[in-house]
């Protein structure tokens, strides 16, 4: 390769990683639009969660077919990054298979395992494609996945297939060039899969095969850079965010809902017999948030926003949701997708308005998520249990219910009646508290 190639490669690399870094910065900024919540306690349990759930894929295999195939693609992704390192060094310095002389047999084993993984990945991705487009599994043809989310899933599969095919073609042409009389390339690597592809180059001139090799090599690396930058727009972002997301997930029992601190202060004041009921509210330096509950993404906490970016739209939550199974409008997956869409919209708004959010007369509540969806939730935690990366759609649903009830007094009539009963009688039904022990003497 001439120097021109190396310079071009360096420029591409810098551009690719540069765009990627700017996307990551945007994501971090958007996540930080959320309210603060402390998720730094118990690092040991958090690392364990991350190791088990994100790295170990323990929750993926609850559905074995998708789980095992997903692990194949995932391992393929991780391992191929080692190969990527070699490609980058080769590209920058004009070398060829730079690791080969240093690693010896290890190199052979590595290349062989990449090849086997590549073919397994192609197989897995094909099955995934068939599940989505052929068998049309219910959760993949759900109304949540119309338009881009549906195409997004397929684009990812096409991308992965093409990248793997290019990788194998690259190796096959390389192998061919190693074996031609005189050996254009030095011998390196073992090629259990691409040795069967190599014969297609027989009869072609060496110059042509070298050119083909270079084309495969370039398209492959450029493809990877493009794919990396596609993440920002795609559900595929989970390959990165699954790790922080499982680390920062709620460690409490699922039944424990947070007690709003701002409310605690008010209630304590109300119940304090020594408090002057006519006194002005004390000025608090750590002023409580201006509203109770959440109507827009800025009212959610940053973990909920991280959840939204991490969601891979697999729909396991929705397929486990009792409300969804009985035909109600609620879909936990849609809650997450709506949150992300709204967050992206708010982010764009900030970008176009030079760093400040200019109200756009829209909110997550109503414009994206309707009260009907929120009220259909039984808070049963099935969605939280199902999520392979520990997302909690339930926490968002609850925060939005809080807004409906405490800011807008917009609970369904029957719930208002229930709450009035609790206020007046200490029970959700209209019975007197004085009758609480009547059962003792009844037959």
């Amino acid at each position, binding site marked *: 390769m001439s120097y021109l190639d190396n310079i071009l490669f360096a420029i591409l690399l810098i551009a690719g990683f540069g765009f990627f870094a700017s996307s990551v910065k945007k994501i971090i900024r958007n996540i930080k639009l959320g309210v603060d919540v402390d998720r730094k306690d118990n690092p040991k349990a958090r690392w364990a969660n991350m190791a088990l759930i994100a790295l170990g894929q323990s929750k993926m295999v609850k559905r074995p077919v998708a789980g095992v195939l997903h692990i194949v693609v995932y391992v393929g992704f991780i391992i191929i990054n080692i190969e990527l390192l070699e490609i980058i060094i080769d590209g920058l310095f004009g070398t060829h298979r730079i690791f080969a002389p240093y690693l010896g047999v290890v190199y052979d084993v590595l290349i062989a395992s990449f090849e086997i993984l590549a073919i397994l990945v192609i197989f897995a991705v094909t099955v995934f494609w068939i599940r989505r487009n052929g068998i049309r599994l219910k959760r993949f043809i759900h109304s949540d996945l119309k338009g881009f989310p549906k195409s997004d899933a397929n684009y990812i599969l096409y991308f992965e297939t093409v990248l793997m095919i290019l990788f194998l073609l690259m190796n096959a042409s390389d192998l061919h060039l190693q074996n031609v009389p005189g050996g254009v390339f030095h011998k390196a690597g073992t090629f259990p899969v691409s040795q069967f592809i190599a014969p297609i180059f027989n009869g072609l001139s060496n110059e042509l095969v070298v050119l083909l090799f270079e084309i495969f090599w370039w398209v492959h690396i450029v493809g990877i850079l493009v794919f990396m930058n596609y993440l920002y727009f795609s559900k595929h972002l989970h390959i990165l965010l699954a790790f922080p997301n499982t680390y920062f997930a709620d460690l409490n*029992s699922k*039944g424990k*809902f947070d007690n709003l601190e701002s409310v605690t202060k008010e209630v304590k004041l109300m119940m304090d017999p020594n408090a002057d009921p006519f006194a002005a509210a004390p000025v608090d330096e750590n002023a409580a948030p201006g509203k109770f509950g959440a109507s827009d993404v800025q009212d959610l906490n940053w973990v909920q926003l991280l959840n939204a970016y991490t969601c891979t739209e697999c729909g396991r939550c929705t397929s486990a949701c009792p*409300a969804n*199974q*009985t035909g109600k409008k609620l879909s936990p997956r849609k809650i997450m997708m709506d949150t992300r869409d709204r967050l992206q919209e708010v982010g764009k708004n900030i970008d176009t308005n030079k760093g400040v959010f200019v109200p756009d007369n829209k909110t997550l509540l109503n414009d994206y998520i309707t009260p009907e969806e929120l009220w*259909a939730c039984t808070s049963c935690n099935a969605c939280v249990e199902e999520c392979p990366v520990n997302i909690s759609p339930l926490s968002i649903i*609850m925060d939005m219910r809080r807004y409906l009830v405490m800011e807008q007094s917009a609970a369904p009539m029957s719930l208002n009646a*229930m709450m009035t009963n609790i206020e007046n009688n200490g029970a959700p039904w209209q019975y007197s508290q004085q009758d609480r022990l009547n*059962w003792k003497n009844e037959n």
Partner: protein
Amino acid sequence: MSESLVVPTMAEMLAEGKQPEVLFWVGCAGSFDDRAKKITKAFVRILNRTNVSFAVLGTEESCTGDPAKRAGNEFLFQMQAMMNIEVLNAYEAKKIVTACPHCFNTLKNEYPELGGQYDVIHHTEFLKSLIDEGRLTVEGGQFKGKKITFHDPCYLGRANKVYEAPRDLIQKLDVELVEMKRSKANGLCCGAGGAQMFKDAEPGNKEVNVLRTEDALEVQPDIIAAGCPFCNTMLTDGIKHQEKEGQVKVMDIAELIANAQDF
């Protein structure tokens, strides 16, 4: 059946200068709902027979605030919580047992931050501990050989990971315990949680309790066992909907244990 129940209140206990081993938190359903009152009484019958020293708050008990909290009314929840905590702390309550998973969850998980630290256990766990300590012996009695399936209440199971105690108790009855296709962590909600009990369901094509009852009927049980008064109501309604009242009963585990000894 008509044995009279001894139900001391915390106030009476205090007047006698006594502290019970355990405070029985009855809950609103257990106090007022006709079906759930039978569960309350069954549990008290067991406590009486095993001479467990217990007391109830009686008229001093109030809603834990669970339905208010799940509906989104954090204010009302915390008001209820603080009032209850004042009462409980005044009696220096240490150990609380309840037959309602919603009360159980709230008292156990959400009260501590508000100043209410108690050792809270579900009645199935408590009964299990009585058996383990040799204070309660259980035989199958009228249930021997019957096919029983257990419906995991969300706020007991997924929310607090209590899966084994209720199953252990059922197995003590010499019955055939059959699992539904969705059970334990994968259990399906009865449809009452999250304050749904108190409102109409949103439009859909089926009620959740009907779907859950179908799950249960699939394994053709004689009895569907529950550990929650709300699940009990929902599943009983589901059985009525399927017109299976004649064949299948919905019973709380406390009722199973109490009734097994009646014959």
